[in-house]
């Protein structure tokens, strides 16, 4: 999803995970509709959506492992399952060796990989990525894009908002352009 700043990319992502609601029209995700979803159902929906941000949104008071485990704890998983699943996704993003480190001890790319691990640990139906490479250098950006692409190949939809032209050239997926709130397919 591309478009100039303020075009509404983030708003669309937020509407998908029902953080904001459309003034007109309707958002339907999985079996939930923005028109009649209840607050508790919003929580249930979010357990099936993984969200990644430019600023990572990791909790600085706990390790990488605990950051990833956090969403499973919230979902009420059992401690034994939590350990197994967290280690599995940390391996997938190649971060299991840093599982006991704190976010402040990680590089930007590593932080974003931890955030991706947290986003996928719940086996989401879709990954929403809002400028995931916005704070990263080129090498880290490539790394993150490769991980997202791998996740996509494994069968999870990925919707990413970006205005990084080099990414758009290199990764030729379906592109949606947004300008002043309107969608244009490319």
């Amino acid at each position, binding site marked *: 999803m591309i478009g100039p700043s303020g075009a509404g990319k983030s708003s669309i992502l937020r509407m998908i995970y029902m953080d904001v609601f459309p003034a007109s029209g309707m958002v339907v995700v999985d079996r939930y509709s923005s028109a009649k979803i209840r*607050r508790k159902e919003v929580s*249930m929906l*979010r*357990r*099936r959506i993984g969200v990644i941000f430019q600023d990572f949104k990791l*909790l600085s*008071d706990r390790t990488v492992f605990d950051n990833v485990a956090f969403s499973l*704890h*919230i979902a009420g998983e059992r401690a034994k399952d939590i350990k197994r699943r967290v280690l599995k996704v940390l391996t997938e993003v190649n971060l299991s060796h840093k599982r006991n480190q704190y976010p402040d001890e990680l590089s930007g790319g590593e932080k974003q990989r931890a955030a991706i691990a947290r986003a996928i640990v*719940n086996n989401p139906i879709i990954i929403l990525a809002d400028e995931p490479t916005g704070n990263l250098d080129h090498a880290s950006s490539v790394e993150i894009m490769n991980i997202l692409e791998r996740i996509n190949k494994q069968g999870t939809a990925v919707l990413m908002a970006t205005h990084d032209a080099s990414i758009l050239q290199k990764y030729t997926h379906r592109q949606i352009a947004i300008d002043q709130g309107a969608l244009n397919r490319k």
Partner: protein
Amino acid sequence: MKFWFSFIEGVRGIRRARLASIITVSSVAFAHLLIGVFLLFSLNVNQIIGDVRSKIELEVFLEADLPVKDGKVVEKNIAALDGVEKVTYISKEEAAKRFRKEFGRNIYEVLNFNPLPPSCTVKIKKGYRNYSFVKKLSAEIAEFDGVDEVKYQKEILSIIDRYITIVYAVAAGAGLILIIISIVLLYNTIRLTIYGRRDLIEIMKLVGATRAIIRRPFIVEGFIEGLMGASIASLLLYGATLLIKRYIYPYITNAYEIYAILLISGAVIGMIASSMSLAKHLKEI
């Protein structure tokens, strides 16, 4: 969502926002110290009043020449009345003996005869020791055959009864105000700690935490901080009572119930305050 997770998150919150936690605990401690002082004061005032009331008794003077047999009948009739705990018959002879004991002189040496009438002392049951009841009872007894006069400490009873309502009302009002003050204090300090952890709440919402789940760690935190504050207040108060007992007022009464009330109140107020401030925060974001 397991209990332990909420608990660990709550403890983590206290450790992370250390300064805010210290402020919260101190304000609970301060408020509960006031509540404790007030409870202890009420308890002791109550104790003193109870002591005074328990000493209240009616003195029923019988007719001077009433035979012992008839006096015993009066004693029995009084004992059968509602609210009477114990009646003791004091014969003329017994009264003379008491006179000698109290004044050190034989009444026969003073007057050549015994002018002391036989009498009954009436002790009143707990719960009936108030002015209006005693007044009614004494009027009733005065009507009995063979009874000459009924006496009791009218003044003290009426003073106690007149002021006790005021004292209790003021005490209840003060207690209520203190509790409200401590909730407001806590509410505000906990709001600060919650504000300091917007990120945690934001991420909880993002990964699908319901409001109940978001609330739990904060309620655990309020519970722990309230309990800690109340414990500090209890220790200070207990120490203070020991000092007062030793140096100022040896008759001070201490009741463990007061400390139980303080601890429960601290924990409950902590939970209420954090749940209130969180509700407001969740509404704002």
